[in-house]
């Protein structure tokens, strides 16, 4: 089974800095990590391949420094790493990103001489929080998708996805190739071993440039190709002026709470 895991390098901070003019993320000076949900997607992929054989290939789009994130993935089970990097890709919104990644996936298949059975993504990136790129890649590739996976299990060549629901999970069988987005798993991603870390350092990270991706329609890439226009961004203010109901019985509190919410036009 060949698996492509899409990952994103994100700033490791709760207070994300945003350029007030371009409304894009300011990356300089902020420590970067692999998007935590993507680390779960990678762990799922590595476990599947450990069980049934095949390859895990990590694909990311971002500036040169995202190579660091790919190297981290190579140290915890990924076999190869590709980085889509070039000026034309900067500022892409989710639609443009989905399009670029889907075309890059086809190119990687060609270069590696294989077909991906499964594309895995984290359910969302912690900086953008849109949850859109995974599903858009599936749309562009015209393959089935299952979102919010708690786990992906293989049985006799079939893939069963445990999809998180409000009251438990559904088990969904899916035809391959498919794309699955992964939430936080019941288990933690593995630690790299010293050996795997050293081996990862020696691996080449293959960069896909604008030239490599010449099949792309560049009017659909980057800031120009992105229909999303960010008008304003701001950090939400933490308000502490909550109401605490004290000294009332449970039923009285409930009535009072309903009244307050009604007054505030929340219900």
């Amino acid at each position, binding site marked *: 089974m060949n698996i492509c895991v899409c990952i994103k390098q994100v700033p490791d901070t709760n207070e994300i800095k945003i350029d007030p003019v371009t409304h894009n993320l300011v990356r300089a000076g902020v420590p970067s*990590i692999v998007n935590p949900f993507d680390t779960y997607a990678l762990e799922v992929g590595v476990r599947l391949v450990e069980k049934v054989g095949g390859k895990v290939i990590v694909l990311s789009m971002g500036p040169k420094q995202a190579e660091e994130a790919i190297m*981290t993935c190579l140290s915890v089970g990924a076999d190869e790493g590709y980085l889509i990097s070039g000026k034309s890709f900067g500022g892409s919104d989710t639609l443009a990103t989905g399009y670029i990644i889907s075309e890059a996936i086809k190119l990687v298949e060609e270069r590696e001489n294989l077909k991906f059975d499964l594309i895995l993504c984290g359910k969302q990136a912690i900086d953008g929080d849109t949850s859109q790129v995974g599903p858009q890649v599936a749309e562009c590739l015209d393959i089935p998708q299952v979102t919010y996976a708690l786990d992906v299990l293989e049985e006799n060549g079939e893939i069963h996805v445990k999809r998180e629901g409000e009251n438990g999970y559904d088990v969904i069988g899916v035809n391959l190739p498919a794309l699955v987005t992964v939430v936080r798993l019941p288990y933690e991603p593995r630690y790299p071993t010293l050996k795997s870390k050293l081996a990862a350092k020696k691996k080449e990270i293959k960069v896909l440039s604008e030239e490599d991706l010449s099949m792309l329609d560049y009017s659909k890439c980057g800031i120009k190709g992105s229909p999303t226009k960010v008008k304003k961004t701001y950090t939400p203010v933490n308000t502490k002026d909550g109401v605490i109901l004290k000294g009332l019985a449970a039923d009285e509190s409930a009535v009072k709470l309903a009244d307050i919410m009604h007054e505030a036009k929340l219900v």
Partner: protein
Amino acid sequence: MYNELNQEIVDKIKKVCAKVYTGDDINPDYAKDEMPIYGTRMPGLAAVPTSTEEVAAIVKICYENNIPVTPRGAGTGLVGGAVPLYGGVLIDLTKMNKIKSYDLENFVVEIEAGVLLNDLAEDCLTKGMLFPPDPGEKFACVGGNVATNAGGMRAVKYGTTRDYVRAMTVVLPTGEITKFGATVSKTSSGYSLLNLMIGSEGTLGIITELTMKIIPKPKNVVSLIVPFENLRTALTTVPKFKLSHMNPQAIEFMEREIVLSSERYVGKEVFPKSLNGQDIGAYLLLTFDANTPEELDAMIEQAGELVLEAGAMDVLVADTPAKLKDAWAARSSFLEAIMEETKLLDECDVVLPVNKIADYLEFVNKTGEECGLVIKSFGHAGDGNLHIYQCSNDLAEDEFKKRVDTFFEKIYKEAINCGGLVSGEHGIGSGKIKYLAESIGEVNMNLMEGIKKVFDPKMILNPGKVCHRL
């Protein structure tokens, strides 16, 4: 021998301190620390001062009226040190919690004694500085850390709290205010009263303000989780790091059982339990720091080679903030995890020469079995400081205490035979006086008592602790 509090004294104290509680208004937590097995007692009055002057005024009234006074920080001690064994007045210092100022040219921070370790550590990081002492309990007061000379994880490289105290303001048992130490790097200026105060557990004076040394924060930090088949192999590896010119911040050891408990408590599986079909019996958790990533990489490669040669099953690298946090969260939750799963609990924190801990722990486990006690151990392997917990969920309290007594007699004796001491960092409090006396002998106990009398002629300050036997 002490006077009882009366309304007149209470009124006097109320005049000098704004927050005073009596009777049912006293927080019941003031009767105990985290090891209630050493006895509990409510104070007659609890005062929550906000300045050194207020503390001094309260103590002066107590001195004049012969009322016992017990200082208290966050109450996270493990030997009954903050328990007002003779009632009287309890002084809660947790509202003296201001970080006052930094002097970054002299690498010091001035704080009030009730600042929480966690708050100081985080505040220092925002200044690009590190407060190196790193005891497991992050929500203890720094004043309490100084009073017990707390050690913690990073002591292997950076030493204990003692090494980071430059100066302090102290209220003596007479109510006088004095200062010990200065913002200097060396001193040969008479007896070090500063060092006498450190580790005196609130028996010689009440520390109200501190000037603490800080260092520039190391730029790169990595932890290694090193699994071993058994504890002996893990522990015999420990002395080899320094012999190979390596200087880790921390070298912790942990047995499989305690890791399982802790992960149940934290609700997250972090450490591997088996490798290639082989069960893991014990782990070392190491931290290295360096100023460049290259330096750090070289360090962990060297450490990796060393442990693999010494019989480690593998070397896992915690090199991202999340992985570092997870690895150390599991380690920091050991005590809470044990408490969660245990009805009756006692502990000791002996410290031994580093090369003796493997044999000693085998002795401890055998003795625990003989005494019919469940033993859980972990600790700072790098400085020979062991935390050994006796646990029971089915024994009656009397029977448990009897068995623990027998157990302690044997293991403290063996610790002394191995060249160790009673406590590495938790202190003596009221719980370990007997074992301290046995280990250091009458001559040294008399010296300690003599010092206590010079500071506290009426023996009113934190009575019944460290060397004060009644």
